[in-house]
């Protein structure tokens, strides 16, 4: 039973186009993998996913002020029996590293990081480039298992990564690539 639900602004559009379909598939994959608690900081690429989650009264969704805060909230949700995910830009990993290691990993907690991977050849914001380039070496240094989602057919991996995060009680990361939403259906 939800209480005091924080509502973000709902889109006036209720038709479903290809982009909406991809967002729905991503949410369904997380839910099928067992995720039932969400923290989020917005990104253009994540807007549709966040809107879907926020519209579901059966899911806990907490908008956060900084990604590291989400790592703390996710840890508490795990203590309370939930399986959490954080939705954020890849730059947010940089704001979270100490907590991911000295809280999530130290106490062996499950956590799915669903990140939009900014930077790369389609990026128009120059400040996204450095973390965009650093994100994969960072994940490898931290020992965080990750996958990249480029195509609709890759979305099934999100369910596997969510399930693994919960079963193995560890952090798993998913990088959503811009190409995913540009793919011809």
């Amino acid at each position, binding site marked *: 039973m939800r*209480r005091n639900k924080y509502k973000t602004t709902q889109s006036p559009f209720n038709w479903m186009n290809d982009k909406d379909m991809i967002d729905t598939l991503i949410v369904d994959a997380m839910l099928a993998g067992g995720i039932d608690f969400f923290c989020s900081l917005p990104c253009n690429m994540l807007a549709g996913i966040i809107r879907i989650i926020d519209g579901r009264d059966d899911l806990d969704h907490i908008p956060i002020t900084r990604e590291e805060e989400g790592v*703390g909230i996710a840890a508490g949700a795990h203590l*309370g029996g939930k399986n959490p995910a954080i939705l954020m830009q890849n730059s947010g990993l940089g704001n979270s590293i100490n907590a991911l290691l000295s809280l999530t990993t130290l106490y062996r907690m499950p956590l799915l990081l669903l990140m939009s991977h900014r930077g790369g050849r389609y990026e128009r914001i120059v400040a996204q480039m450095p973390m965009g380039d650093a994100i994969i070496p960072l994940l490898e240094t931290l020992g965080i298992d990750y996958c990249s989602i480029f195509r609709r057919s890759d979305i099934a991996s999100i369910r596997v990564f969510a399930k693994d995060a919960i079963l193995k009680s560890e952090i798993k990361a998913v990088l959503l690539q811009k190409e995913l939403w540009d793919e011809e259906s």
Partner: protein
Amino acid sequence: MKRVDILRIVLKVAVEIRGFIISNLGFPSRELYHIRDRDENFYMLGSMGLCGSIALGLAVSSPEKEVIAIEGDGSILMNLGSLATAANIRPPNLTILIIDNEAHSSTGFQPTFTAGVTDLAAIARGAGIEDVVTVRDEKELESRFFDAVKSDKLSLIVAKSDKSWEDVPIIDLDPLLMKKRFIKAIRADFEG
């Protein structure tokens, strides 16, 4: 007030109402562990600044439990955004206690900005938390803290503390075992 005496009062009330405590790292956790260890205490060992956030996640996911965050002035100043999040989510079963000794006591009492011009209670009110009080003696703390945990709304207490610390050893619990017994206590309560 000495911090250890504040912790004694918090623990007494927590035991009475079966409250689940998320305790800030360093000497606050060590002193709490030293006074009386219990399964319903979660001792942070790292991730400074996230005490209130962990407690918020627990309170939202366990709405039938009373959750108590034992924060410090130094740690809350690292994560002031968490006060805005808590104020907007408003978990009625969450009480945030900030032990404000105006210093980083675990590293040698270097002053924090609450020793200067910063007022944590005003920040909490500005974040949107309605039930905020500052206490300066043990009698007032006990009565206000008891009311706060029993109330059906989010509460925050700033307890002004002396620069005191107890020479107690580090916590020798395995983090994984400590977490598991905490989760077991939450679930046992749920099933019982």
